[in-house]
């Protein structure tokens, strides 16, 4: 599955490269490649820090804790915690998706993780300064107000429509074929603190 996904993305990148070539010739393609390089160099440290944090979360927080706070029994508390965590966590998709995976592996339910991801997308505090600076206070205020209920709403919807989505997603995680095995064993061996 992971290999297929890599291939699909690689082909999508090539397809976009062809579009770029048609629009602006080789110089456009080259600037896309150098953009990729700059992006990678710029976020290498961030990615390493994010994955180390995700690994620590995985071994630190026992299944019991996650199930209690973010799993089936958590109720509305799980949505609240997921939403606040999403709003507070800094960094791009290579930061919050590994953390979402760590929580999913430890038994968090699907509604909580959807709330977490959508809250990261809509409530994130780290984006607030640039949004205010470029769009102004009024537009930013309106944007935050009208999207205020969206993250828990999406989470609730996920919970209602995909009751067993957590397990289904867990079983289809791309990394379970590789690094996941070790990572998953650690919390089991540790038991409750």
């Amino acid at each position, binding site marked *: 599955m992971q290999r297929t996904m890599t291939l699909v993305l690689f082909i999508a990148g090539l397809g976009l490269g062809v579009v770029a070539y048609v629009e602006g010739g080789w110089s*456009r393609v080259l*600037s896309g490649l150098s953009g990729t390089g700059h992006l990678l160099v710029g976020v290498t440290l961030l990615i*390493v820090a994010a994955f180390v944090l995700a690994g620590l*979360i995985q071994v630190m927080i026992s299944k019991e804790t996650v199930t209690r706070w973010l799993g089936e029994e958590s109720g509305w508390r799980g949505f609240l915690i997921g939403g606040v965590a999403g709003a507070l966590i800094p960094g791009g998709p290579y930061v919050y*998706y590994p953390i979402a995976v760590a929580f999913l592996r430890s038994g968090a339910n699907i509604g909580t993780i959807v709330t977490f991801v*959508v809250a990261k997308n809509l409530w994130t505090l780290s984006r607030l300064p640039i949004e205010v600076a*470029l769009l102004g206070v009024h537009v930013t205020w309106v944007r935050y107000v009208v999207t205020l209920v969206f993250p828990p709403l999406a989470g609730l919807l996920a919970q209602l429509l995909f009751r067993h*989505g957590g397990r289904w997603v867990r079983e289809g995680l791309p990394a379970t074929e590789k*690094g996941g095995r070790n990572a998953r064993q650690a919390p089991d061996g540790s038991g409750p603190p």
Partner: protein
Amino acid sequence: MSIATIILAVLALLMAGLAYRQDPARPLAGTVAGLKMLWGMLPLLLAAFFVAGMLAVALPPALVHRWLASSSGLLDVVIGSVAGALIPGGPYVSFPIFAAIHDAGAGLAATVSLVTGWAVWNVGLLSFELAIVGPRFTLIRMVTTLLLPPVAGLLAHALFG
């Protein structure tokens, strides 16, 4: 080093400290688990970055800009949402484009849909989500957020327009 990196490093250190108090071997175990996860995903991440870089040059901002600044009426929120989804890049790339579109005459509803569409339907994010969490999660997340960007624009119009 970016502020985000510093915050994450501090969070990781705090976590490592807490882990050490539980069991001195645990910080290392967590770090190894994280790095193994990163190693396993490296080809996927590289492919995702390749897509992100190519998307930025395949979709010239001027094109999106032209679609949106010329549209009017209710169609605004739908076009805004879709345009937002297609605008690649992180906030430091995208918000200057949004500001240009807003200044070029896009209304409040269109601008709110634009930002919301970019935030939840983002095509660039999709590759990372598929790579790291997998297509099953992406499906669930897309179904549950399908209506949010146009609804955000309509709400903005109804409440503040």
